[in-house]
């Protein structure tokens, strides 16, 4: 039994934290928030690529760092803590994982080295407006090598160089879903930025109208592959959520220790103390579930889907709770533009929706538990 990150991983975490403290302060996120023209911090993105984080889980033969997935979890927690405004989640957790899990050798050789170097940005195009995207609701099509249909919101879809598109593949002889790789700098599509609650993670709308694409994985395998990719991404995002939740809790505790009212620190009032403890308990439960997820994803554990869903359910709850009550603890200043509380509040809800809503994941968790018990 060893339920801790290794010394090397702790070093990686300390290094990541120092780097992000220096290069991804809240000011960097605010710059994106305050400038509607900007989608992410390009300089920060280049530095992150130079550190090798973009290629963290890409094998060395494809130009990556060849780390294990647990290491990427360590980085993800720090990225979540710092609010770093980059397309890391789309490009690394989703697009890179899609190629690693479903790509042919040629596709890997084509995309992975450029993803590793941060030269290209990938994204996953799944949602089609309000409601749950799934086999019965997705209308985008893939016919004769061409993708058509409108995808929105697509995380980093406004800036990505390619997309992994979930579309109905008539070529497969039926209407089941397939994954399709589409060059977003090519012909047959138009895109624009979408206004969201958290502009520090930008989103786009992509209107495909006969855009050339190639299958990623087998025809008709799209939904099963998407679930697998999303299981992996759910664990990385859970670490971002834990990082963000811890940062929110730290802010609230610091404020409660140093804000005085009625002649005493507000943190000495039990109404505040108990609120902060409830946040802390949620963060610790989420951290424990996320850690197991990190182990499960690195060891391809048989209960990976249960671990991913549990990590996501716990982390969404923890971050939403902590970011909301952080504002409450700050009182009037908490809901000003000037204080940073809202940056976490925005990010919390965005992350808890980005791979599907909380209610969808609680349902999925119980489904995976039912399947595990039958097996």
């Amino acid at each position: 039994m060893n339920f801790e990150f290794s010394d090397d991983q702790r070093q990686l975490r300390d290094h990541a934290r120092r780097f992000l403290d220096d290069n991804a302060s809240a000011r960097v996120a605010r710059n994106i928030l305050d400038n509607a023209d900007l989608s992410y911090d390009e300089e920060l993105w280049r530095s992150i690529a130079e550190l090798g984080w973009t290629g963290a889980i890409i094998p060395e033969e494809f130009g990556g760092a060849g780390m294990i997935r647990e290491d990427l979890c360590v980085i993800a927690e720090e990225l979540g803590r710092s609010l770093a405004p980059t397309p890391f989640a789309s490009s690394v957790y989703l697009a890179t994982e899609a190629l690693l899990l479903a790509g042919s050798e040629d596709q890997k050789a084509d995309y992975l080295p450029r993803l590793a170097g941060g030269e290209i940005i990938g994204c996953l195009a799944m949602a089609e407006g309000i409601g749950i995207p799934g086999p019965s609701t997705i209308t985008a099509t893939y016919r004769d090598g061409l993708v058509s249909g409108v995808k929105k919101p697509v995380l980093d879809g406004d800036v990505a160089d390619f997309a992994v598109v979930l579309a109905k593949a008539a070529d497969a002889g039926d209407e089941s879903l397939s994954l399709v790789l589409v060059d977003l700098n090519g012909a047959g599509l138009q895109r624009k930025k979408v206004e969201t609650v958290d502009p520090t993670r930008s989103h786009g709308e992509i209107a495909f109208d006969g855009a050339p694409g190639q299958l990623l994985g087998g025809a008709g395998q799209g939904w099963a592959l998407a679930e697998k990719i999303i299981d992996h991404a759910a664990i990385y995002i859970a670490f971002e959520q834990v990082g963000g939740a811890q940062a929110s809790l730290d802010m609230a505790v610091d404020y409660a220790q140093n804000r005085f009212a009625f002649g005493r620190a507000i943190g000495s009032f039990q109404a505040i103390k108990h609120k902060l403890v409830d946040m802390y308990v949620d963060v610790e439960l989420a951290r424990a579930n996320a850690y197991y997820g990190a182990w499960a994803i690195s060891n391809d554990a048989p209960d990976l889907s249960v671990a991913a869903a549990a990590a996501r359910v716990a982390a969404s709850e923890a971050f939403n709770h902590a970011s909301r009550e952080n504002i409450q603890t700050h009182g009037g200043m908490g809901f000003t533009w000037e204080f940073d509380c809202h940056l976490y509040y925005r990010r919390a809800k965005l992350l808890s929706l980005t791979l599907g809503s909380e209610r969808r994941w609680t349902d999925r968790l119980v489904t995976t538990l039912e399947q595990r018990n039958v097996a």
Partner: protein
Amino acid sequence: MDFEDTQEEAEFRAEASTWLKANGVPKQSDQTLAVRRGDPSIVPLAKEWQRKKYDGGFAGIALPKEYGGRGGTRLQQVIFSQEESKFAVPPNIFSISHGMAVPTLLTYATEAQKQQYVQATLKGDEIWCQLFSEPGAGSDLAGLRTRSERDGDDWVINGQKIWTSGAHYADRAILVTRSDPTAVKHKGLTYFFLDMKTPGIDVRPIRQISGYSGFNEVFLTDVRIPDSQRLGEVGEGWQVAITTLMNERVASGDRPPPNFEEIFALAQQLDTEDGPAIEDKAVRDRLAKWYVQTRGLELIRMRSMTAMSRGERPGPENSIGKLVASFKRQEIALFGMDLMDMGGVMQDPSSTPMSALFQNAYLESPGSRIAAGTDETLRNILAERVLNLPRDVRVDKDIPFNEMRAGTVRSGD
């Protein structure tokens, strides 16, 4: 990270498991508690099982060999408990004896006393109880007023204790008293141990809302204790009590069922008007939340095991376990009964799922949120010791105890 046992841990687990298979009865999955902690009829069974463990080398696993322990590690103690929980063993009525009295004796008693008392309880011969709480001193334990007055070589004790688990079958007790009411609250306390058969002790069981009686009121009238049975200096009883209480949270651990497993099984068994309860989205939502809490606590325990394997002591963060688990148990009990709809009112074991497990837990769970640290006390501990929030303003700090209000005081009294 590694969720498997190390080779040493695996070897110990195998040894424990082999011994348990040879000496215990494996638990059936649908089995519920036939006997309860407070029921005195379990005492002979529990003593017998403790004796077996002692003879097998599994009593006081983390305690020193010279006092009858195994001289092993706390982690081995946890591993043994995990394996033991798979067997139908009597409720552990020795948790206060071994988890609280023994560590206190080992810190403060004389060598001869350690030799005499520690081994006796590890062998299962003697059960200890803890005479701490009083009608006017619960969460605020230092508000206790049971008096101890020096008389020659003895101390004379007068007062009342309450919430004493197992006092009705205990052989010995640890006791905190007020020796100097004119000193400030935390300074005037003195700590003793005594034989429960000492003249002047009157034990009266308290009937709980569940109908069972696990706790007692204990009246002490002119009870004489020799000064040799004092632990720690006169007036330093609070320090000694802290040693005892630091061990309480570690000793409390798992909550009894129903837990996630039972409510999940119940939701699979029962139907609603629209089909199996487990297919109801509202039910699934609750199940998912309870799963991540249950699993989260299990994993947090594994993290403490990792810390223990490095020789670190479990810290105040362990209060999370009791805080989350006892509230969750109450919620699960309520929801399980709700799933049974009109039939949920029945507590007759023969006509109610899982022998009325949920109904019993409904009536027992309010007590678990209070005993051994209320939810509110645990939140204060976590806030002050883990989050480093400032302590509450104290109005009782520099006042002599006999000039301070404590317990229930109404204006006009």
